[in-house]
């Protein structure tokens, strides 16, 4: 029965117009995703109205192509210029950038492509075969569970702090502090807004991220001397396929991260950024004695982050299509794209329009096949981007980051936030502070705070609400273990 639908879906997808739409979508997604500040959400929202005149399956293929393409392409600037194109790619920097520093940018992009493909395919398969089960579990996430998940995410600060745990903690806490700016979501009190209307909804964290990484990296390049070829690295641009030994090395970690990423993506409110940080962290915990060690350009680090964030795309569609609850900001717009055609996402969809559903599934699989193809063919071209003299590339990147910041909300204010973060990031890096914890703090602190306070409001102040939730309890215990085990081991040595 299901197989019939899949076959039918495959037949439907094999239409030149649909394939054309996928390709256009993927290209647009890759273009926008590789520019820091341009998000998949914005691209999809702007192109949404073009799908109104198409049939539902056609429109979905265009939009899903953008979605997959953008999440994949966020890794490209992360690898090449140490600036994540989308928040999901923040964790790709850890090992992706060191690889390109060694002249292996092409290899890193290829690994990222393969891992994105594996993660994407795993998540679509999960979407096809396990949707109801996963959606049911995801729906159990209430405020206490979200609090626990955010706390668990914050423990990652320790493992992405590099050499100095104290500096990493300061970075992470600074990110958390910045995240408290804005209208308090529980009481409506204006916290640290200084009567600036742009600050009411908080500091735009993508602007901070572009500044911390993009601007700071640019300033560093200028400090080193923009027109000197002192650290000119020759990028190896031979071959299209990764070596067999590379494939064997990343296969287990890509698969595991794909499964975990799909599950995290299915939780409404947890997107690719959180998924990638968690899968990267898990990889560093499970793989002992990695050589080179994580953070020094281990391909398995790139694979873990990229498989995790791409798996969250299919994961996010699980509650969207089975329950009508959007899994992330992109899938919220996808619901709109379906409603236009009187297609109501929800349990009824499986009875009413199974053919459409399986056409979307098969199409999404095919989109990842295309991403694999384009990614492998394009890897060497991307790698050559760094071979363009720095004196041309950095002025253009700096200009792009400013536009990216303005584009976030159509406001110059965010460009100022970005420049300020750039100076901060530059100075902090000089002083040896790791920057990734700031991003983690920014993303996770609001989730932790709101859900903690909401939980306590719901329980009238009793902490029992956390003890009564098995999921929250397990995640919280895991968080404690994540902190204590390395600490105990360090003391033992």
């Amino acid at each position, binding site marked *: 029965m299901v197989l019939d639908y899949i076959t039918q879906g495959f037949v439907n997808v094999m239409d030149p117009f649909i394939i054309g739409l996928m390709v256009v979508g993927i290209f647009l997604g890759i273009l926008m995703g590789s520019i820091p500040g341009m998000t998949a959400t914005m691209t999809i929202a702007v192109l*949404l109205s073009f799908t109104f005149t198409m049939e539902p399956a056609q429109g979905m293929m265009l939009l899903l192509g953008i979605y997959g393409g953008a999440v994949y392409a966020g890794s490209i600037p992360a690898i090449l210029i140490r600036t994540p194109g989308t928040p999901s790619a923040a964790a790709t920097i850890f090992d992706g950038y060191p690889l390109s520093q060694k002249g292996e940018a092409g290899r890193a992009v290829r690994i990222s492509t393969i891992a994105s493909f594996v993660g994407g395919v795993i998540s679509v398969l999960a979407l096809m075969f396990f949707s109801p089960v996963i959606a049911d579990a995801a729906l159990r996430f209430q405020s206490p569970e979200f609090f626990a998940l955010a706390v668990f995410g914050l423990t990652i600060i320790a493992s992405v702090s590099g050499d100095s745990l104290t500096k990493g903690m300061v970075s992470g806490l600074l990110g958390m502090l910045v995240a408290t700016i804005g209208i308090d979501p529980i009481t409506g009190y204006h916290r640290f807004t200084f009567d600036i209307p742009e600050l009411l909804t908080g500091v735009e964290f993508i602007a901070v991220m572009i500044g911390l990484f993009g601007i700071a990296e640019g300033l560093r390049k200028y400090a080193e001397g923009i027109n000197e070829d002192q650290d000119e690295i020759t990028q190896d641009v031979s071959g299209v396929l990764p070596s067999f030994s590379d494939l064997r090395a990343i296969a287990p970690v890509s698969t595991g991260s794909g499964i975990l990423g799909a599950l995290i993506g299915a939780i409404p409110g947890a997107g690719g950024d959180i998924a990638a940080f968690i899968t990267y962290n898990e990889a560093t915990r499970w793989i002992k004695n990695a050589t080179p060690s994580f953070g020094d350009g281990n391909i398995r680090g790139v694979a873990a982050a990229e498989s995790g964030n791409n798996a969250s795309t299919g994961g996010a569609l699980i509650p969207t299509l089975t329950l009508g609850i959007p899994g992330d900001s992109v899938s919220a717009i996808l619901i709109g794209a379906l409603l236009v055609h009187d297609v109501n996402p929800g349990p009824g969809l499986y009875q009413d329009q199974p053919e459409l559903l399986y056409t979307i599934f098969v199409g999404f699989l095919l989109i990842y096949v295309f991403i694999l193809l384009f990614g492998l063919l394009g890897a060497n071209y991307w790698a050559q981007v760094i071979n363009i003299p720095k004196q041309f590339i950095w002025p253009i990147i700096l200009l792009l980051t400013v536009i990216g910041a303005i584009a976030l909300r159509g406001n110059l204010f965010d460009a100022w936030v970005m420049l300020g973060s750039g100076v901060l990031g530059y100075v902090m890096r000089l002083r040896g502070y790791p920057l990734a914890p700031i991003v983690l703090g920014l993303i996770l602190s609001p989730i932790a705070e709101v859900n903690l306070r909401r939980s306590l409001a719901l329980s009238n102040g009793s902490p029992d609400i956390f003890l009564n939730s098995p999921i929250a309890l397990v995640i919280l215990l895991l968080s404690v273990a994540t902190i204590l085990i390395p600490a105990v081991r360090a003391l033992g040595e």
Partner: protein
Amino acid sequence: MPEDTSTEPTRQTVLSRRNLVKAVGTTGLVATAGCLDSVSSQLSGQQSWPSRPVEIISPWAAGGGADRTSRAVADAAENHTEGTWNVSNQTGGSGSVGMNAAANAKPDGHTIGCMAPEIALFEHLGIADLSPDDVTPLMQYTEFPAALVVRKDSKFKSVDNWIAYGQKNTIKMANSGFGSSWHMAAAAIADEAGVKVEHISYDGAAPAMTAVANGEVDSTAVGAAEVASQVKDGNLRALGVAFDEKVKSLPNTPTLANEGLDIRIGSWLAHFAPPDMTESRKQEIVDVYNSVYEDDGFVEFMNNNGFIRVKRSPKELQQFLQEQYEYYGNLVDKLGISKQ
């Protein structure tokens, strides 16, 4: 009295590929042809309208209701004016940043703002120094009635159940954001029913509905169209709709008035121009808006997307805004969340 066309039947349209190409091609031609014209009039400082692209500022992000309906208005307006209409998004400050930008633009008709009940709330909540007095209302074109929603297998089978329980106990009620118009809607319904409510804020309508579905809270008030698919075959039940009549998206749900609660509340969207616009320019724009409201493409868009067409003329809108301002002022006082 606002017109309501919610009972019109849906017409599902699937345009063929050729039509799409045709439509796209025409837009391109019109756009190219219109440009020379607009450049020349722009440079000569001519006072015609529109002499360059008209920009509608959506104060919320692309893909949301304000953005999508504004795009539909822009598309339709191009049929009734010579020139292009664009929608841009300037978000932040609960919508106050974008509304402020439009309210402070040149009153020449080339910048139009989009507003919602929030404009009558900003001053009360101390969010922004922006009130209905700071805009020239053009037209309201839609309304989003609130639906009172509970879990499907909840003990509340009817509004009566809900009220009876709430008069003795405290009902936990989710809203889609602190100080949002949906928070106000929830408070207003609770107030009208005389029930005790603890308001729990979430970040958007979807998390609020999820919290009802998974039993974290007892009920919520969200837009009827938004909750429709989850009522149809999901985990939610709509007890009543705060509107004058049954709405198309929830065909089996009675109005709250029918259940003994005489209340019509929710959200709405309207367009406005900056203040101090000349009467003749305003009339020109309002004429275009009247045509837009009846435009086939616009009507079809609204019907297909579950937006109820509700119209208020500039005069009606002006008066309505004043009423809203006072109404929300009282509500905010009662809730004890006024400006600190």
